[in-house]
């Protein structure tokens, strides 16, 4: 006799529904803002010059090839597509690893599979729930376009592309979960491959001669659908085959391995490396070294691209009175010199640095949640000292990746022929430090008061704040709401001087929140 397998489906749904809901709502909201910000005058008035802009290699690398800029649909696919696809794929891959490896690593599947259930059925039911999430994302994407009155066929095609890409990422995560015994490693490999696939797509768009590469990456397949332009169906074939193949492979691999182990065995014995074990500070840093390297690398790539497109972009704006009028209307300000442009673009880096700081501080909570603080805080130290070092180490990783981004941006600008000094790019990135202080303060406060929600609330507010500032004016949101976003008050350094008042307010607020959090953490019970 077997237990009713639907219980397993319900269990998987319980573990996943929050993440699915957040991904669906977040992606739909982001896409809605992009699509509704589309201004017909924007494309009709200057299609020719816009062409020259979107044909810039670095910009094409970032956003992909634009096939249709005459409709809000085509514009949305071009301007928002890359972001939507990357976020959907990363979410799908990481969620897949979380339920298929994380739960097992935590030992909960030992208990689950001791029940009269077919082990394979348990895996399949988890995959089905993940795929339902992909379908929901695809439908949400389609709905955004349809609600905005765009062509249904294009909307459906792009929605299918996003959903199928996410399904492929689920399959990728599921396979990684079979190959590697630790969630962290499986997630790293799966996330890394998603990133790699995106970089291949970037290369394929950066240079005509590399166009064939577009057929080598799922991100390229979605682009080749040319939704709202040619609406091609052929790319759906690989988009369907990939998830099917990966999902079958994951189930087959699952059947061939021991529970709790990966197919790729990891080394059991390691030589002791006792460096950076001498105190709280060094240890907090040691625990964050890998993440610091990853963020630094990622932000350096991003910074390089921003630097590299600067010259083309500013040339375009200088030559285009219509676009200048638009940027003024949307309160973006002058973007006609490289220093203006990187001052404007630094906001994205600010957001990424805030997210890095927040996830880095999240490790402190993971240590507590997983019980590692029980022994640590029985040692002679104060809570304040420990948490202070954790915050300092997180800040140090942010300084590393911020510096890497600024250096790379300067290098990219040199390659792209923009007139930028290293002090300009460093200043642009350093100017965002007040945001990092503000949001770190918020994360620390929440760590003291409600640690379970600290990451979600802080990261969520940062993302919402960023998009409010960047897209709010274009989407005609009321001034009173847009002005709530701290990102809105970031001066375009180095072109403009630092906004001393706004910076001071953010730093003081961040420090005050941090002090509250420190005090609360020192007084509260450790979670067991």
């Amino acid at each position, binding site marked *: 006799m077997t237990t009713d397998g639907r219980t397993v489906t319900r269990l998987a749904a319980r573990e996943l529904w929050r993440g699915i809901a957040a991904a669906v709502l977040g992606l739909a909201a982001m896409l809605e803002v992009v699509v509704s910000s589309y201004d017909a005058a924007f494309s009709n008035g200057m299609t020719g010059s816009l062409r020259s802009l979107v044909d810039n290699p670095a910009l094409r690398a970032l956003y992909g090839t634009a096939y249709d800029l005459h409709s809000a649909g085509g514009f949305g696919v071009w301007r928002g597509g890359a972001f939507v696809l990357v976020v959907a794929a990363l979410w799908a891959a990481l969620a897949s690893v979380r339920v298929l490896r994380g739960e097992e690593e935590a030992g909960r599947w030992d208990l689950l599979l001791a029940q009269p259930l077919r082990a394979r059925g348990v895996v399949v039911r988890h995959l089905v729930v993940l795929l339902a999430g992909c379908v929901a994302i695809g439908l949400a994407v389609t709905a955004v376009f349809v609600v905005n009155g765009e062509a249904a066929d294009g909307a459906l095609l792009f929605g299918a592309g996003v959903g199928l890409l996410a399904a492929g990422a689920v399959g990728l995560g599921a396979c990684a979960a079979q190959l590697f015994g630790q969630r962290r490693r499986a997630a790293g490999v799966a996330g890394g491959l998603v990133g790699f696939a995106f970089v291949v797509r970037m290369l394929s768009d950066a240079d005509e001669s590399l166009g064939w590469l577009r057929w080598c990456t799922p991100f390229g397949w979605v682009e080749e659908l040319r939704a709202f332009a040619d609406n091609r169906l052929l790319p759906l074939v690989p988009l369907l085959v990939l998830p099917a193949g990966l999902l079958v492979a994951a189930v087959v691999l699952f059947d061939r391995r021991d529970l709790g182990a990966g197919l790729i065995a990891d080394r059991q014995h*390691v030589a002791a490396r006792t460096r950076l074990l001498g105190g709280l500070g060094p240890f907090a840093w040691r625990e964050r070294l890998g993440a610091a390297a990853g963020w630094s690398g990622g932000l350096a790539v991003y910074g390089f691209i921003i630097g590299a497109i600067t010259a083309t972009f500013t040339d375009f704006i200088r030559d285009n009175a219509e676009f200048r009028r638009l940027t003024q209307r949307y309160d973006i300000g002058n973007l006609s010199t490289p220093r203006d442009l990187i001052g404007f673009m630094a906001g994205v880096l600010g957001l990424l640095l805030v997210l890095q700081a927040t996830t880095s501080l999240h490790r402190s909570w993971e240590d507590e949640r997983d019980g590692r*603080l029980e*022994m640590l805080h*029985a040692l*002679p130290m104060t*809570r304040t000292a420990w948490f202070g070092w954790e915050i300092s180490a997180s800040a140090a990783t942010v300084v590393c990746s911020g510096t890497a981004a600024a250096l790379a941006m300067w290098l990219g600008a040199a390659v792209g022929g923009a007139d930028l000094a290293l002090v300009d790019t460093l200043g642009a990135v350093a100017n965002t430090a007040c945001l990092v202080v503000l949001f770190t303060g918020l994360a620390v406060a929440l760590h003291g008061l409600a640690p379970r929600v600290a990451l979600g609330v802080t990261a969520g507010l940062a993302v919402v704040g960023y998009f409010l500032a960047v897209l709010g004016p274009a989407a005609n949101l009321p001034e009173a709401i847009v002005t709530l976003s701290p990102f809105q008050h970031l001066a375009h350094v180095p072109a403009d001087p630092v906004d001393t008042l706004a910076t001071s307010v953010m730093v003081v607020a961040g420090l005050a929140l941090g002090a509250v959090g420190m005090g609360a953490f020192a007084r509260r019970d450790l979670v067991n």
Partner: protein
Amino acid sequence: MTDAPAVECDDLTKQFGSVTALDGLTLEVPRGQVFGFLGPNGAGKSTTLRLLLGLIRPTSGRARVLGVDVGERRQAHQRLAYVPGDVSLWPRLSGEECLTLLGNLHGGVDDAYRRELVGRFELDLDRRSRTYSKGNRQKVALIAAFATRAELLLLDEPTSGLDPLMEREFQRCVHEATARGQTVFLSSHILSEVEDLCTRVGILRRGALVEVSEIGELRSMHSVELEADFAGSPPDLSAVDGVVGTERTPEGVRLRLAGSPRAVLAALASTDVLAVRTREASLEEIFLAYYGEPDAPATP
């Protein structure tokens, strides 16, 4: 402060929401003792230890370790060591790296003794701690704790993952610690362990301390169990002075006695009793009486 007791709790209370995990614990453990802290799951043993470490804060009451308020974590923790009931280590660190980290952060670790303990507990230090079983993780925590030579050792069910050989090694370590004058506060629900190691025990039940006494004293307080066989149906003796529990047997009744048996013997004399047998209750039965049964003796 050198002569302050190892552990002092004064009306220590901890509530989690509406649940009272510890209810007015007042307790003093002198230095140099091995104190057994007994109770069933959920009785509040771990809560007490976590309060003593300042990991959680009391709802009311106060506690001191070695004369230092538990809120003064840095000062208090310099002279104690702790083994949690469920040991979590840093998964990517090897056993060696975990011990190095803990040793560096505590300071004043006896390196030679630590090396000796690693050998005695047969711990493979080169493996990453995520590959360790529960028992191996416990060994890391035990080695780290004993190697500090701390004045007070707070141990929360320290042998729950160890095999019998390792359990014996643990007992040797406790004996060595007491020989050096260290105090050991040992929470457990394993009776034999407590019987072998502890001079004094406290029994916790549903967050309240129901008994503190020397092991021998405890035995003599609840020593007698009396079985009486009757020709007909047995009389109701539950109300008789000194009787704390009754139970039917095929031939008659089994009575648990506290204090003098005089009243029971007098009552039995006027019945059609056929036979009477007495027996010393085992320590286990004493604890079971404290733990679970509704008619468990309060303070005899």
